[in-house]
């Protein structure tokens, strides 16, 4: 792997991780709200 390719690989991995984090946070919020709706 050349330094440029490694750079591209790291950028893509970071993008995947950020996307996954956003999805996880969104689901945490959704489950929290669903719980309250279900109890109400």
């Amino acid at each position: 792997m050349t330094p440029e390719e490694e750079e591209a690989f790291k950028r893509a991995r970071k993008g995947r991780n950020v996307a996954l984090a956003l999805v996880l946070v969104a689901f945490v919020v959704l489950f929290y709200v669903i719980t309250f709706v279900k109890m109400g």
Partner: protein
Amino acid sequence: MTAAPATPTPLEWRDFYALTKPRVMSLVVFTGLCGLLAAPGTIHPVIGFTAVLCIALGAGGSGALNQWWEADLDAGMKRTAKRPLPSGKMDRSNARDFGIALSVFSVLLMGLAVNWLAGAVLALSILYYAVVYTIWLKPRTPQNIVIGGAAGAFPPLIGWIAVTNQITLMPILLFTIIFVWTPPHFWALALFVKTDYAKVGIPMMPVVKGEAETRRQILIYSVVLLAVSVVPWAIGGTSWVYGLAALALSVAFLLIALPVGLRQSVEGDKMKPEKRLFGYSVLYLFALFAALVVDAVLRNLGAIG
């Protein structure tokens, strides 16, 4: 197939997003939402949102499983060769695991947050699309589009059940409408887009049965669609608002399908009637389901009987 690059291009989140077939998703989300909004009874907005989200996630999961199974076919067709799997960018097992994860998650969430009948029908729709259609029947029969149409017909049924928690005649009629709409919609496209399905051994109607038979079938389905689309009104499931809209939209559908059904293409044909029918068919489905929702809202407001 193009050779995979020496060092594979790094996987981005967009590659996973592409696996879910986002363009198919818009119609799935719209019809699912319409089923949910047209159903009698009330649903908490958050639960309703969750139901539509689950329908979308389930559709995304089936899309990923479809691409996992058809990676070799996709590699042989120009339209699909650039997808993440056939281009060699993504490993096949990645797509399979992503598809299974999305599918299982969507069904569990639907069951836990909405109701288990909706969850069960969602599971059925995913299995139907991924196994019955993609793996079993698509490569085996020129009726594959008819069979695949049933997969696309599930969303409004699931949306409706999310509210009512029971399967009644009305949501089954919504299912039937999309089921009957799909063949003329897709075959109109198949007539003017030169696809290479034949090259990869998928028996599409125009290739196997010929153009004349395909045109005849488009016409038959258009007549059946006219009949089916007004049944919700005829049985008293909707008011005249939906009924007249369905009648006008379906008569127009038939009139636009007539020239397609009665002609034969010639050398260098521009295929204008076929393109017009395909374009109208998309508009038709959006307008029909919008009319259904408008009808339900007006009835709930007591504006009409």
